[in-house]
């Protein structure tokens, strides 16, 4: 264990190495590490933001869906009401129309009846006239007269 100039040589080498390390090795590596840290932090923040935004979007979507459902329900209710109304209207219309048709039919029937009555009356008059003619013709034949009236009555 004898000391010699190696001591000085080693000290000088040491100083040079530390200087080199301090100048050319440490700062770039540390800079890269710091930069990466910042990058990672930014990435995490972005991820957080994205998550938050997604939550908001989901909330919004749920709200929209809810609204749409409500609207749909409203529309359906309105439609049902309208349908009921239409049915009611149709019913009323039908009744009115039915009444109208019935009235017209009745009027026609009455007309027909009147007409039939008129014609019947005419025929009766004719018959009566014809009967009266025959009766007048056979005034003298009393028996024939009876038969004739019987026949007339049966025809009426």
């Amino acid at each position, binding site marked *: *264990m*004898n*000391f*010699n*100039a*190696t*001591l*000085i*040589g*080693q*000290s000088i*080498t*040491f*100083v040079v*190495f*530390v200087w*080199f*390390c*301090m100048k*050319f*090795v*440490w*700062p*770039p*590596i*540390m*800079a*890269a*590490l710091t*930069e*990466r840290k*910042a*990058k990672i932090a930014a990435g995490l923040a972005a991820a957080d933001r994205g998550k938050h935004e997604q939550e908001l979007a989901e909330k919004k979507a749920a709200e929209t869906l809810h609204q749409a459902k409500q609207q749909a329900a409203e529309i359906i209710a309105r439609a049902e009401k309208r349908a009921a109304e239409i049915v009611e209207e149709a019913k009323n219309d039908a009744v009115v129309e039915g009444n109208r048709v019935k009235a017209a039919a009745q009027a026609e029937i009455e007309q027909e009846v009147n007409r039939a009555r008129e014609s019947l009356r005419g025929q009766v008059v004719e018959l009566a006239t014809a009967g009266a003619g025959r009766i007048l013709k056979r005034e003298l034949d009393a028996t024939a007269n009876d038969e004739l009236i019987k026949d007339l009555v049966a025809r009426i």
Partner: protein
Amino acid sequence: MSATTSAEYIKHHLTNLTYGKFPEGHEHAGHWGFAHNAQDAASFGFWSINVDSMLFSVALGVLFLGLFRLVAKAATADVPGGWQNFVEWIVEFIDDSVRGSFSGKNALVAPLALTIFVWIFLMNLMDLIPVDWLPWVAGLLGVGHLKVVPSTDPNITFGLSLTVFALVLYYSVKMKGVGGFVGELTLMPFQSNNKLVQILFIPVNFLLETVTLISKPVSLSLRLFGNMYAGEMIFILIALMYGGGLVLGTFGGLLQLGWAIFHILIITLQAFIFMTLTIVYLDMASQEHH
């Protein structure tokens, strides 16, 4: 391997490849050259150099800085590749350690800690290479001695710790001022409200605090050196068993495996301790109030 006896083998492995000037009385007196043995190396005095320690230490340092510089140049904030990932893992670990132990703001401390940790770890890692491989290659190239683990050379560990000590002194004076630093050395830990007693305390305090101060670099380097030296010694002793026949050799192989696995923990731990204590010492030096 030219060593014959166990003692020579061990000695051979513990001798650095030293370059220096041969002193008076030597056959090569006045010439510069490599030491042939430990006595030669000792006779060179201070102005000689352990070529193997310096070589491996510089090579490993360059390897470390080169590999990390690769990442630093291509550093991107996007998804990192495999090597960048690994380097970032180490850098973040160091950064966390510095943040945890160093309260002030200082651009020097973190790179310093990184250099200390990785460099010392790599130097210690050389310990896991089987002890005979690199010296054997060196022997083929005609180099007599080769100690491949720089951190088993006290010159290397003291070179590190004394530099750290210089930084401690620099920041102590810079942050506290000369007066503050001297005050820290002389007015603590014993204090008194009585002026006369306080003056009497000054030499005692100074002695205690100086010992505390000096013990920092000494313990720092000796801890690393001692652990690595002992570890290396055990590897050498285990390697000796390979010459003792098949049974002893197999047993030695198992022992080496076990010790190497355990040693992975030690080399990492020693690098970490050196780094952490450096941070702590610098933190203490940088604090305005004790």
